[in-house]
């Protein structure tokens, strides 16, 4: 019996290996390049002769990644908080009330999910420019919130629907009013769903590209993706070892967070997709 599982495992890993190699290839390139010396970087060898850990500290001092990291943290944290605050009540309404317009609201969310920032960027830019708010990070916070609401309400609602109503009804029977039930029965059960949804919203904001590219002009306001791109685009000589070190710093923390949480996403999305 054990033997069969072992055989099967080997076969499956064999089938998956080509795609895994292709998926890992760019990230392996990133990691290796970030540890090469300036002279070795132009040599496409697989293993650097010596590991240049100082690339990371040198990159940190010269590239402005530190302030970009702070900007990204600021924007992602605030917009996640704002998104969650407005999405929880909406998701609660969708999962616990029957009301006229419920379906219309759900379809509005769907449509807003379909419109990516890129389709609206011309109009957004004009509005922001007319208000004289280019280079204002708070504008980014509001825009990210607007675009994340649909995803967030959708995920929360699908989780909320899995929390059995019986518990709340039992509390009502005991004479607790709606608010009290909400606070002492529903919300404690919903905390894991909120945390997971918040983290995915954070990752979305952290990785956003086109709005930040358009709305931020001064270097000191750049978020991480724009900062890293600015190290590459429009330059005659690119210090690729620094660029890869910066990309490494920008992606690894989020990747670890995501790896830890991906199975919750599988559950939330699949419940949301069919229910």
């Amino acid at each position: 019996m054990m033997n069969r599982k072992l055989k099967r495992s080997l076969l499956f890993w064999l089938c998956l290996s080509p795609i895994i190699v292709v998926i890992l290839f760019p990230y392996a390139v990133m990691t290796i390049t970030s540890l090469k010396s300036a002279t070795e970087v132009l040599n496409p060898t697989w293993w650097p002769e010596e590991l240049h850990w100082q690339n990371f500290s040198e990159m940190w001092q010269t590239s402005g990644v530190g302030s970009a990291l702070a900007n990204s943290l600021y924007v992602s944290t605030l917009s996640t908080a704002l998104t969650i605050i407005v999405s929880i009540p909406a998701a609660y309404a969708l999962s616990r009330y029957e009301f006229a317009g419920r379906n219309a609201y759900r379809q509005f969310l769907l449509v807003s999910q379909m419109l990516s920032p890129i389709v609206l960027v011309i109009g957004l830019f004009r509005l922001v420019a007319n208000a004289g708010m280019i280079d204002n990070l708070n504008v980014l916070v509001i825009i990210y919130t607007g675009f994340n609401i649909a995803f967030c309400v959708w995920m929360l609602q699908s989780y909320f629907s899995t929390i059995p109503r019986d518990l709340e009804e039992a509390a009502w029977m005991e004479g607790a009013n709606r608010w009290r039930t909400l606070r002492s029965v529903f919300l404690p059960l919903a905390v894991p769903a909120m945390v997971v949804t918040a983290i995915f919203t954070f990752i979305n904001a952290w990785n956003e590209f086109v709005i930040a590219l358009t709305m931020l002009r001064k270097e000191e306001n750049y978020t991480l993706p724009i900062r890293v791109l600015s190290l590459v685009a429009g330059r005659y000589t690119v210090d690729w070892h620094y660029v890869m070190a910066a990309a490494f710093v920008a992606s690894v923390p989020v990747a670890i967070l995501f790896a830890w949480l991906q199975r919750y996403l599988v559950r939330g999305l699949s419940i949301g997709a069919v229910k």
Partner: protein
Amino acid sequence: MQRATAPYFLILPSFLLAAAIILWPLKEIVSLSLHDVNRFGILRDFVGLEHFRVLFADPDFIAATWRTLIWTACVVLGTLIVSVPIALILNEDFYGRGIARILIMLPWAISLTMTAVVWRWALNGESGMLNSALRDLGVIGSNIQWLAEASTAFPMQILIGILVSVPFTVTIFLGGLSSVPEDLYEAAATEGAGRWDQFRLITLPLLRPFINIAFVLNTIYVFNSFPIIWVTTQGGPANSTHILVTYLYELGFRLGRLGDAAAISLIMFAILLVFTLIYVRLAMREEKA
């Protein structure tokens, strides 16, 4: 009475915020697309559909539209073909499944911009590691300048597009597979159905709604996808890898043709609306079934 108004109060803040971020810019885009605009966004005369006429006479726009079609079709179909077997394997019980899942999901966690920046370096003609890897394997004899020509750059961009779309698609399929009741297979096995028959007669039909939804959602995401092409080639060389989104950005923010860019936005909006309607119909049909 209080009960009847409560849900509306609860959804109001989210509705207002989402509507403001979507409808307000949309109104701006409509007015930009119907007026003569200078490069600083000052509206001048009303010109009606002039911007649309300019676009349809612009060979680069027509080429970008066709390329968008090829881009979307190749990435979406490629993703579905790759994702079905991966999801089937990841749904089985085997040693190291957790690690395999994380590895397959990895591109989802890393921002498209970073992935694209890294690929731009890996595809570098002289120092790129793709060339050296392919030479070591004996696939190519001399270095290829991947990003210097559309004929090599665009297929690579499609490949990157597929790689970053697989995680989401596999996730949807895994959700679908977990809803397939185990006893169906047992029943089929006692009836003498082989593995292939089980897949064809049970798995595939039950997976169909999830394939449909993944198809429509991927179509929308890929159609809107900006960073891969913008970061690797910026639509170049000579506009030969533009899709609609990158062409829109180029017109609006590089060339200052805001009116034309707004017109592209509206054309894309119309196409997206059609996709969305298809999605809503599919989703509704699932709900009824």
